[in-house]
């Protein structure tokens, strides 16, 4: 099966007061039809920039897409005209954002905003678009959809607003839905509802989802495959179960280890042991050296790590070949595999 969306050696730079900084240092990803790819990492790792690049929404200036390709159904969209991007965006590739409060227009009703998205891409009358909007609100589980279509965003709860965002995003039956931290602003019971809804929608419409998150728990629940990012690079990639059960990069295992255990399994009378820590902080992007960006925080660091950056595809595999497999950018992990 061919990937629906392929990112190849994508490089994005930003002009900052520290000069030009590399936000994405050549990343490669594949999104297969109907799957969920999780992109996980801490703040500043480049995960949201990756999402924006897939939408053709890197702000320029200060951002520059300097190298690489994003191929959607055979077309390199990094070279697409603004007009062509407007066609694709919202119709074939759509996005839901982190903050449903600020990404909806406060002076239009939910129904208006969904209908606008429909009329932009489909040849329908205002009335038909409105009816479709009501239907979409029903699909995303909003009670009394006809009444709610006439509501303004401020009259809705955060969860309901995120449902409206999802309704808008799926209004043209996109092939790829990019969700950038879709539940970070929501309470945990509402987050659970939104996750359930996203899985339902994937099943119903077969849409591929790219889920950007900092939460490994969300990855476990939502993703088929995972890319772990650190300082502008993908440092580990593979099936979600492989990554979660058998992480190879010390950063990935650190991220998993520092999550507090929850529930009955950890309900001992004993105090829980200290959390595993990753010492230090993510280095500022303008201070990255030639070696592995994680070297200063890594328990397995050795000389070579500081001199030479480990590539993601060890053993000379091309990106295409490790799709479905498990790839890691780490000298120590490579030694382990060779041994």
């Amino acid at each position, binding site marked *: 099966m061919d990937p629906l969306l392929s990112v190849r050696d994508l490089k994005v730079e930003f002009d900052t007061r520290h000069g030009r900084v590399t936000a994405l240092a050549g990343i490669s990803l594949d999104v297969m039809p109907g799957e969920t790819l999780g992109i996980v990492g801490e703040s500043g790792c480049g995960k949201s920039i990756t999402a924006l690049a897939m939408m053709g929404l890197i702000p320029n200036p200060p951002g520059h897409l300097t190298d690489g390709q994003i191929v959607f159904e055979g077309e390199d969209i990094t070279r697409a005209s603004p007009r062509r991007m407007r066609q694709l965006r919202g119709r074939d590739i759509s996005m839901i954002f982190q903050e449903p409060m600020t990404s909806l227009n406060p002076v239009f009703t939910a129904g208006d905003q969904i209908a606008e998205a429909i009329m932009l891409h489909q040849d329908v009358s205002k009335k038909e678009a409105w009816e479709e909007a009501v239907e979409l609100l029903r699909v995303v589980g909003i009670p009394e959809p006809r009444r709610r279509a006439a509501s303004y965003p401020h009259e809705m709860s955060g969860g309901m607003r995120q449902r409206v965002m999802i309704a808008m995003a799926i209004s043209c039956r996109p092939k790829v839905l990019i969700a950038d931290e879709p539940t970070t602003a929501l309470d945990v019971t509402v987050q659970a509802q939104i996750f359930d809804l996203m899985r339902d929608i994937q099943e119903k419409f077969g849409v591929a989802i790219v889920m950007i998150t900092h939460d490994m728990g969300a990855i476990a629940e939502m993703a088929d495959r995972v890319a772990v990012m650190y300082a502008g690079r993908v440092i580990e990639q593979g099936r979600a179960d492989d990554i979660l059960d058998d992480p190879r990069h010390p950063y990935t295992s650190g991220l998993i280890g520092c*999550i507090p255990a929850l529930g*009955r399994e950890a309900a001992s*009378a004993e105090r829980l042991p200290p*959390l595993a820590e990753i010492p230090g*902080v993510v280095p500022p992007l303008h201070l990255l050296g030639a070696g592995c960006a994680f070297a200063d925080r890594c328990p397995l660091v050795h000389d070579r790590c500081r001199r030479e950056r480990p590539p993601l595809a060890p053993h000379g595999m091309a990106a295409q070949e490790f799709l479905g497999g498990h790839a890691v950018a780490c000298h120590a992990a490579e030694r382990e595999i060779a041994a």
Partner: protein
Amino acid sequence: MSFDGHPSAGPSGAAPLAEQPLLEAVGLSVRFPMPKKSPFADRDYLHAVRGVNFKVHAGRTLGVVGESGSGKTTTAMAAVRLTEAYDGAVMFEGRDVLKMGPEALRKQRRDMQVIFQDPYSSLNPRDRVGAIVREPLDLMDVGERKDRADRVKELFSLVGLRPDQMALFPHQFSGGQRQRISIARALATNPKLIVCDEPVSALDVAIQAQVLNLLRRLQDQFGLSYLFISHDLGVVQFICDDIAVMYLGEIVEYADRPTLFAAPRHPYTAALLDAAPSLARRKSAGYSRAGAVKGDPPSPMNLPKGCAFAGRCPRAQPRCKDEKPMLRPLEGAKVACHFPLEG
């Protein structure tokens, strides 16, 4: 194991229980006035916290957990009088904090400090961080003036910062480091109680682990008590000895950590646990939630007559809508539910 006497601390690693709690809230209530609908209308109030009772014991951590709007932060702020309560009592070592005059309260604050949620807005951007940590020492006149610089240095080392960073400004630090500065400031006066209001929720998970471990180390070192506010059950399970679960301004379940997490009794607690993402729930295994809670909490301006959770509860019966369940003891816990879950 009686709850009022407190479940035994035993092997939890936490401090053994003293006779008297360090801090005890009795019937604590907070309401906020709402704008009048007309000049002649009666004023409406939003009852944010309604008659909660809890105890923080010396050397232990009480977690208050709930979703946004549950009143957990308001409860904690009222307990240290950063928000005024309109009813109830907060006894700190036997004296009612709510009845203290301004001078007594100012002295009392030496013993009760706060770490706020947002490390970006809780540090004055114009002050050097050394001055920020020193300020409580000067304000509350702690120790000799000449020793204070050394004390600030010591505090910096305690929280894992370098003393040479004292001359920097808050914006020169990362979120995690700023939260360490907040912790140093809270520790400055050698308090007995620190209110931690979501101290790690603005931090990345790797940094969160560092700060949580630090908070626990400091608790062991200085015998601190924490009143720990969080929406994250994993964090609460890691750091808290006792837990109060709040929903719409009331405590719906109150138990020690092993009891609560081994067998949540209130359907809302169970729903929170069920909703929290966990590494064990895999898409590959076709994970789906059985008892997912529907909808949003009702508005605190318009509370139902019966149980506030009844409208979302998978176990609700007609009785729940008519009759409000009171918090009552149940096998080592306290639960406000007519039909609690099996233990």
